[in-house]
């Protein structure tokens, strides 16, 4: 009963995401282990993590909003202010720098009309600087919502922006915050579930079991 009226009071998560949130929380022996997955869920829904999201997550994981924010703000990939639909990170570490990252960044600023760190007025693009993206052989690189683009020339960048604006890349680059298009839900018979570690007695539940 309490949970029902909680749902009506809460406002941040959509009904479907609230259901997902409960599934996520149930995966862990300790509720607060779900903090980071729920922050991802919030960012997926909203593009960035607002105070309302953290308040609701705190309630779900039995923590205070301060604890949720303290945990979340450690991570660069969680955004606590509005960002564009596409977050573009241009690598500026050595290999990319040698292969023209500065020129690329300069061009990107001109093309998008914003300085690094800013978001375009239409709310489509946020331009960011990034450190090494672990693809030095493909320099210069950038990421759009953490999906790689390799050996990017200024022409490539213009085409990328035009394609994203026109929605031609919707197939492979979802909006900021989306980790994956297919959400894997763990079947009940392979889920570890909320079992305190000291009470575990058989083999790990995620191992394929007979008859499963």
């Amino acid at each position, binding site marked *: 009963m309490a949970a029902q*009226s909680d749902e009506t009071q809460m406002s941040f998560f959509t009904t479907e995401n609230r259901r997902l949130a409960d599934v996520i929380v149930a995966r862990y022996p300790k509720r607060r282990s779900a903090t980071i997955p729920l922050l991802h869920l919030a960012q997926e829904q909203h593009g960035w993590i607002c105070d309302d999201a953290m308040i609701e997550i705190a309630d779900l994981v039995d923590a205070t909003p301060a604890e949720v924010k303290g945990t979340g703000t450690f991570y660069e990939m969680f955004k606590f202010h509005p960002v564009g639909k596409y977050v573009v990170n241009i690598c500026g570490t050595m290999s990319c720098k040698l292969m023209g990252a500065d020129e690329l960044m300069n061009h990107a600023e001109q093309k998008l009309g914003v300085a690094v760190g800013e978001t375009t007025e239409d709310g489509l693009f946020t331009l960011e600087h990034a450190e090494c993206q672990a693809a030095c052989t493909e320099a210069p690189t950038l990421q759009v919502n953490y999906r790689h683009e390799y050996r990017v020339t200024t022409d490539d960048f213009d085409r990328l922006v035009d394609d994203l604006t026109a929605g031609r890349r919707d197939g492979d680059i979802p909006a900021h915050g989306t980790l994956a298009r297919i959400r894997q839900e763990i079947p009940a018979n392979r889920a570890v579930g909320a079992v305190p570690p000291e009470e575990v007695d058989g083999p790990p539940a995620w191992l394929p079991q007979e008859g499963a």
Partner: protein
Amino acid sequence: MSNETASEGVMVTINGMEISVQPGDLVIDAAERAGAHIPRFCYHPRMSSVGVCRQCLVDIDTGRGPGLQPSCMVPVSEGMVVDTESEGVKRVQEGILELLLINHPLDCPVCDKGGECPLQDQTLTFGPVESRFIEEKRHYEKPIAISDLVYLDRERCVLCDRCTRFAREVAGDPLIHFMQRGNQTQVLTFPDDPFNSYFSGNTVQICPVGALTAKPYRFRARPWDLSEVESTCTTCSVGCRINVQSSRGELLRYQGVDIDSVNHGWLCDKGRFGFEAVNSDERLGTPFVRSDSNPDELVGTDWNTALEAAASALKAASGSSVGVIGGARLSNENAYAWSKFARTVLSTDNVDAQLGDGLCAEMVMSLPRATIDDAATADHVLLLAPDLKEELPVLYLRLRGASQGSTKLIELAPAPTGLTRYTSAAHGYRPGEMGQALDELLGGATGDAMRSGRTVVVIGRPSLADSPGEVEAAVGVAQRLLPEATFLPALRRGNVLGALDMGLAPGVLPGRIANDGSSQAWIDTHWGSIPTERGMDTIAMLEAAASGRLHTLLLIGADPLADVPDRDLVERAFAGVAKIVAVDTFATASVKRADVVLPTTAFAESGGTTTNLEGRISTLGRMVTGPGTVRDDWTIAAELAWRLDADLGLESLPGIWAEIEAVAPSHARCSPSMLSADSEGVLVPLPVVAVPEPDEIADDDADTSEADTSEAEVDEEQAEGAAAVVEAPSVPASVSWSAPALVDPPAVDGYALRLVARRRLYDAAVHTSQASSLAALADDSTLRVHPAELGSLGVESGSRINVTTARATIVLQVTADESVPRGVASMGFNQPGISAAELIDHREPVTEIRIETR
């Protein structure tokens, strides 16, 4: 200390000295005992080690050669070699301090911590001479208020995790946290969610730099200007040990003192900042008498006139027509003086330190008493108590801490309390049915579990809207079904248990003995003849006053209008008596109705001793002089006695204590030297000497006098053997009490809600309202009802409603609250602008209220 005597010690070498230490000790503590102080910022002995500041790195060699390890994280092991002064250690200490100082603003001249700052002190002792850092330091907005009481200056912070750890581990209010971890790590609250913990002041005390400062102390003094004296907080009856600090004759700060048995160094904010009430401009500094020309007015006068007026008011009353109410906020010595004054001068047994909101004195005194440590180490703690977080906050901390270990808390409460979330089982009951609910609970598996281990029962008034008889019957059930259990009384006022011990209860004489004739020979030799007819308690006195049978009421630090759970009765009583004499520190609602007002000293303005809820006696420190011409209570009692042609025979606080030691059997042998021996205080009654292990207490006593010791031994034999009479007069037996039978619960009225009225920490009483920093925190003035209940009544949450009982109709704001059980409505007993006392009829077992929209 006594580690050398431990048989299973671990031998370690610290700075070339081989010593034996306890297994499990941390190197940082072992070194401290060996005389080697290791600098530290994050380590705090009352919290878990985290090893984040790196200042305590020392060379530790466990056989693989010396290496730097944080001494707050490493427990000692056999053969360990520790060097706290090696070249490597010195370089590291300098290096860490240089690192910490890179961004530290070095604004010591304007920093409150300057002069008592671990960063400052340790930099001078262990730090580098110069910084090599010439760049711009980190800047933050400074300071920011993280609560109404605490300010945070992030530039000064060294990120030691003490405040955040305290909030999480000790207080259980993790409202401050490290944010933006990385280059910008800082302590912050969540936006619009301030650090509103009842314990926030502790973070200021344990901050090793000036990052956290308390609003009431900011820029008020420098540490080297402060005088201090050790004392015991009397805000509530937990009895936290504190240092009282003042400058220029004004109280400026209380700091917690770490004692094992009670507060572990922690204080609640109400206690910590309560000095503001002592300093209040509203304090009474001069006597008042009611004006002859205008009966609505109290006019200031001199002591002679006021004492004469008080004496004549008391003289006009005979023993049965005078009543003495209050004394629970006084020192033991002052309470003793009033108790003796009432019995020997006024010849009355109509005395009561409790205001109808407490427990039966005989019950409290005769139950086997538990200590706080007993509760914190018990297998089970059964809570039959008010909301301890609100009323006895540091006891709440201790029990919360115990619940994180192996102690199981079982709660039986009419509405959830601050401890509910830490219980292993929380049971509700409908107000009026506590005894039945407990009978059912203890009859089952829960009772079996509690009977199989060590159980402590915390007893108090879970709701002031119910009659105290309900609790007494429930305690009887607990006694019957938990025969081995011990009891911790959760009574609230600072020295209420001391006042009861001093005989400020009808039928009870100093030392927990009954005034029923059995102790006549004993008391006659000390006090002379006193009336043995049992007097009236506060409720009975007020009823007698209301029906015109009482001539004079003497209020000693009591405000019945605010505190007695039946306002109407008090109003009628005040109207019914001829004279009211009030001895108090503030012009409370009741004092304003008095005919004579005698101003008295407050906390830190007088010495003496106080008794906490365990029966632990500890000393009070005198630090400042009271306003105007205030006098100590005992001198007022002695003066009044003199004006009533009697002599109390009391001449000084030590003299009174000596008399208490002689008169009160429970306090025998509790000598001033024992009381001042250390900060822990003395639990009374003292254990019998004939225990198998050598007893430090007996040793202490031996140096006072041989005769004392032998007499004491006789006392104990009597106490043990009960009947043996060695010399006259014999020590009277302690009071006894037998539990009332369970009565059938009152019938349920389907149209009414049962009221649960409990005190909040910050309420309308003077300790909050006269402390400027705390007054605004007393804000919860609503009636809380389950939303479904509101729905069925058609009342909207947040609206103002009429709340009606047979006594009165009052207007309240109502708030939907899912934690309140169905059928119940919960409110603060005495919040600003509302008083549950107006609704309550003390004759009714429960308070049924009806709610109507206006």
